[in-house]
């Protein structure tokens, strides 16, 4: 075991830090769940991409720096330390991109990865349906092959930022009469396709962060099939692994929040009951544990291990840690916790925003109940029935 950063790591960290200091917008951008905020976040993706900081662990030919995951972790640490904007391209770069790298053809890689890296094309995930949430194998949206196209009909929902995004990666039923996990495929679909209607859904905070997508005989070129036809479940599970496992939530984001929580506690400690300090420390300790575990996971992955069902433990831990951390902030703020903005609102309502979003963590990327089922059955080996 060796936990030393090399001098090259340290130089890399300094270079990231320096660049961020010169480029991170001094004012926090408006939420990317609004048109204005989305556009500004896209602009930020362009800025990142121009100097090749958007995806340091991607191969150089697709806009990355060809660095390993340890560098990515260091990048993330500096990124959240600098309080840089959230990544509006996250569903593309963290979920779809690794899937394309694993399953895509060379042509697909060349077509989709560079504009994803540059912020020119922002992606939404279109898996959930009104009748297929936790039970994703109940997907009914169908795609019928017609010559060089698939013709897609059906409905998707809860698609994050699909109101503003350019493309979606959808899971649809390509094999007529197929059931459950069989007969599904993954299709890459432009969101401005004729026959595709997007209806915004206001989220908890009132912003249109989700969309419902209605597909009425939408024609999708057959070359946009990602991975094997009718083999979409396996492809989707790989994506879900990235989502639950490593990429979507690196420790840095939570560690930055924990450091801010300690400061919040310091500012308010005189009026707090004694139990609150325990909660603050608990939140901070959780982020330390998450960081230690992530570095260990990255070491294993870099040595060739693959992450499968264990990824579920990761998702459980970060989502419950995040909710606890933000609830502790709500406790500290007391009577001011309800304020969203204005002079009286602590930190301009950031904690309240964070608390609301933390409530979604145990739901998206597969609910925590589903993650516990997966761990119990596939890792611990308890009987399904």
């Amino acid at each position: 075991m060796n936990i030393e950063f090399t001098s090259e790591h340290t130089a890399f960290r300094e270079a990231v830090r320096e660049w961020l200091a010169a480029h991170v917008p001094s004012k926090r951008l408006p939420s990317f769940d609004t048109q204005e905020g989305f556009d500004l976040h896209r602009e930020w993706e362009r800025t990142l991409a121009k100097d090749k900081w958007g995806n340091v662990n991607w191969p150089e030919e697709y806009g990355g720096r060809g660095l390993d995951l340890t560098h990515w972790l260091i990048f993330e640490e500096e990124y959240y330390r600098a309080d840089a904007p959230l990544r509006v391209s996250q569903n593309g770069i963290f979920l779809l991109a690794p899937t394309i790298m694993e399953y895509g053809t060379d042509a697909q890689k060349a077509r989709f990865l560079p504009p994803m890296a540059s912020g020119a094309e922002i992606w939404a995930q279109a898996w959930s349906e009104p009748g297929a949430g936790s039970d994703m194998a109940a997907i009914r949206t169908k795609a019928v092959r017609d010559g060089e196209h698939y013709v897609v009909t059906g409905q998707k929902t809860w698609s994050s930022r699909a109101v503003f995004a350019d493309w979606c990666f959808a899971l649809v039923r390509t094999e007529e009469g197929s059931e459950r996990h069989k007969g599904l495929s993954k299709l890459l679909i432009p969101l401005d396709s004729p026959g595709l209607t997007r209806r915004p859904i206001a989220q908890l905070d009132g912003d249109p962060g989700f969309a419902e997508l209605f597909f009425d005989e939408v024609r999708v070129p057959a070359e946009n099939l990602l991975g094997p036809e009718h083999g979409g479940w396996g492809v989707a599970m790989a994506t879900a692994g990235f989502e639950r496992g490593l990429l979507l939530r690196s420790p840095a984001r939570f560690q930055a929040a924990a450091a801010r929580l300690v400061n919040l506690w310091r500012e308010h400690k005189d009026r707090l009951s004694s139990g609150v300090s325990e909660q603050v420390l608990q939140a901070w300790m959780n982020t330390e544990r998450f960081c230690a575990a992530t570095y260990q996971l990255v070491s294993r992955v870099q040595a060739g291990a693959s992450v499968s069902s264990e990824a579920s433990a990761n998702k459980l831990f970060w989502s419950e840690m995040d909710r606890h951390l933000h609830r502790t902030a709500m406790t500290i703020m007391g009577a001011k916790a309800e304020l969203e903005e204005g002079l009286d609102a602590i930190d301009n309502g950031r904690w309240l925003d964070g608390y609301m979003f933390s409530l979604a963590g145990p739901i998206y990327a597969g609910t925590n109940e589903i993650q516990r089922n997966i761990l119990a059955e596939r890792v611990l080996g308890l009987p399904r029935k």
Partner: protein
Amino acid sequence: MDFRFTENQQDLIDAAKAFFIGENTAERMRKIAAGETVDNLWPQFAELGLLGLMAPESAGGLEQPLVVMAGVAEAAGYAGLPEPCLEIAGVSVPHANEEELSGQITRAMRSELRPHIDSSLADSGEVVMSIDPLRKLVKADSGNDQNIDSINHHGAVLSAAQLVGLSQRMVDMSVEYAKDRHQFGKPIGSFQAIKHHLATVYTQIEFTRPMVHLAAIKGGRAVHTAKVAAIDTAMMAAETAIQVHGGMGYTFEVDLHLFMKRAWSLCGEWGDRNYHMKKLEELVLEGDEPLGPGTTFS
């Protein structure tokens, strides 16, 4: 940066685990609890190199770092090993040159009660019984006030590592029991409530083990976090395990209690939860430790 055991280190740990589990069977533990004599494992500890694991090569040791000892300690916890082999190999041996080692150990343990790490103490001190039937405590005086940071570091890390092993063992025992025991015509392990309880503990273990490894290598605040996490995880593992076992779990007959009671006692050893939380209050809340991204490893 390669935060994994090397192949050699992993082999050492695996060999120790196989040995501990093979020798320290439940039957052996029950015999000890009943006051019967059992095989003396000390010659084998020595033969396998466990006692000299951290000793310098010049002294015939393997000169392994504390984190490897932590891997062995996790294995010992898993096996419920009653002998204080870890404490000797991981605390006493590496500090063998310190003066008044015995008093310092007592102080580092933050309790005047300690397992008989060396036989001289066992002979001289007043013996106190623990709820753990395999544990004899002796009362020792606290010695003088010397720098005990390193002893404390080793002791806390190795007790945390044993707690991780004990937690894992209690989960594994519960999984086996839940597959076997039927109610309502099905294995109880097919009930979602049981699954979710165990998945929760599994997750806590997965996020404690790497913290213990970090604490072994880095010391400092990581040690306090690791010990608190290990305590909370072990208490949760024990409470969950007894719940999954139902009435059987509440008996002296089923092995679970041997591991549960060991966990209780290790929670209070080498700094209890209060001690480590107070340290964190000083360091993290009131001190000037750097916090936030990039401060955990650097």
